[in-house]
């Protein structure tokens, strides 16, 4: 076994260079020496071809792997949750800047009274809207991201089975109304904090979107917020940026529905606008 029948010592020497040759790490002179030898030595040429092929098939096989979409989200969530990396010098500057700004702000309030401030009822409505939208965000965050469900891919049959016959039609409806590059990968029933949801996850290569629907527990979007809500074919859409996620919600008599993603506001609202009329009609049929 130890006897390797190289025709002469030069082959042995050249073979010791082949790995570095393959990695393009040889000095120019050595490279020439290898090339010259390969020209006249079939055995060494075959050895190089074999090594080159192994390298190529390994790279090809390994490159097929892609990071699950849920991982990207968990990382982004981590980053945004953790404190900013603050340098001491920066901190001092920031504190000083904050002091100046606060002093300025007090001045503005004194000079302008409450003209610039949001009226109390509007403030309350905004807070109440955000609180309601957080219901949808929690399901997205808990189910699609923390439990990495977004990395799964259910078949239509699995989705129909998990979601139940009542809601099975929702999958096709959402697939039709969502932007072309998105695909419904998960449709199931889940729970967050004891609250049941019908949950669909849409995915493209980079982004996850949840459509989470839950029965009302006496909640409703506040009447004061209706005036500021956007409209999509007669459906009022309520939107808020919460913990770096964009949440757009709408309601029917018995249901709350949420479209959640980390897309910019205009994109999330646009997708919600496309989905809302069809989903509303679907839910209304269930309400009878």
């Amino acid at each position: 076994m130890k006897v390797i029948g190289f025709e002469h010592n030069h082959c042995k020497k050249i073979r010791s260079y082949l790995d570095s040759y393959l990695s393009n790490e040889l000095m120019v002179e050595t490279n020439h020496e290898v090339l010259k030898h390969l020209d006249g030595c079939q055995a060494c040429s075959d050895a190089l071809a074999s090594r080159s092929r192994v390298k190529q098939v390994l790279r090809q096989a390994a490159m097929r792997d892609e990071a699950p979409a849920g991982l990207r989200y968990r990382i982004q969530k981590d980053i945004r949750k953790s404190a900013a990396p603050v340098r001491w010098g920066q901190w001092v500057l920031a504190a000083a800047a904050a002091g100046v700004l606060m002093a300025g702000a007090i001045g503005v309030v004194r000079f302008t009274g409450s003209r610039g401030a949001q009226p109390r009822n509007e403030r309350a409505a905004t807070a109440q809207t955000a609180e309601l939208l957080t219901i949808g965000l929690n399901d997205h965050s808990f189910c699609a991201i923390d439990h990495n469900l977004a990395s799964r891919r259910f078949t239509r049959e699995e989705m129909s089975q998990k979601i139940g016959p009542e809601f099975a039609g929702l999958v096709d409806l959402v697939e039709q109304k969502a932007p072309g590059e998105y695909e419904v990968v998960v449709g199931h029933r889940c729970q967050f904090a004891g609250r049941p949801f019908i949950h669909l996850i849409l995915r493209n290569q980079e982004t996850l979107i949840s459509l989470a629907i839950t029965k009302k527990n006496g909640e409703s979007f506040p009447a004061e917020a209706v005036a500021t809500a956007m409209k999509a074919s007669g459906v009022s859409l309520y939107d808020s940026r919460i913990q770096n996620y964009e949440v757009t919600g709408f309601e029917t008599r018995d249901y709350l529905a949420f479209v959640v993603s980390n897309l910019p506001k205009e994109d999330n609202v646009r997708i919600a606008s496309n989905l809302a009329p069809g989903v509303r009609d679907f839910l209304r049929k269930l309400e009878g």
Partner: protein
Amino acid sequence: MFGHKHETGDFEAAAMPHLNDLFRTATRVIGDRSEAEDLVQEAYLQAWKSFHRFEPGTNCRAWLFKILFHVIQHHRRKWYSLRSAKESDEILMETLAYEPPVPEHLSDEDVLAAFEKIPTQYREVVVLADVQEFSYKEVAATLGVPVGTVMSRLSRGRALLRNELGGLAADYGIDTREKRTGA
């Protein structure tokens, strides 16, 4: 907090495009997708925490890989004792120069399964050099080992993989005896 959003955006723009490469590498080195996910997530968190030390304009990919391997080495020290390469070395002394025939048709699963049989210290060098196409110098910096070590581990790692695939050739009925004795 001033500049936090700006820095978050900077970090994501610089670091997130390398996620697939880091995940692939961790998966091949660790051999378990779920563990690899956790380690990559931890590497990103550490990278974010030390992002203020990263110099814009320098190689972010290489910097992230260095952090990833630091996390992997820490994880390994915690959970496993590094498999001794001694046994493999002895076998390698005999097989290094032998070039077994590689089957013509190999599935990705065949190749990855063969790769997984190689001891980790060779696997990590091969994946960095051959899959991620880092230079010897960059691999050395990523793993904190001398360039000479990278060269010998790469050579041995590749030989082991050839050997494993050569085993497949035998399984597929390709006769390897003639080449073994007659080269």
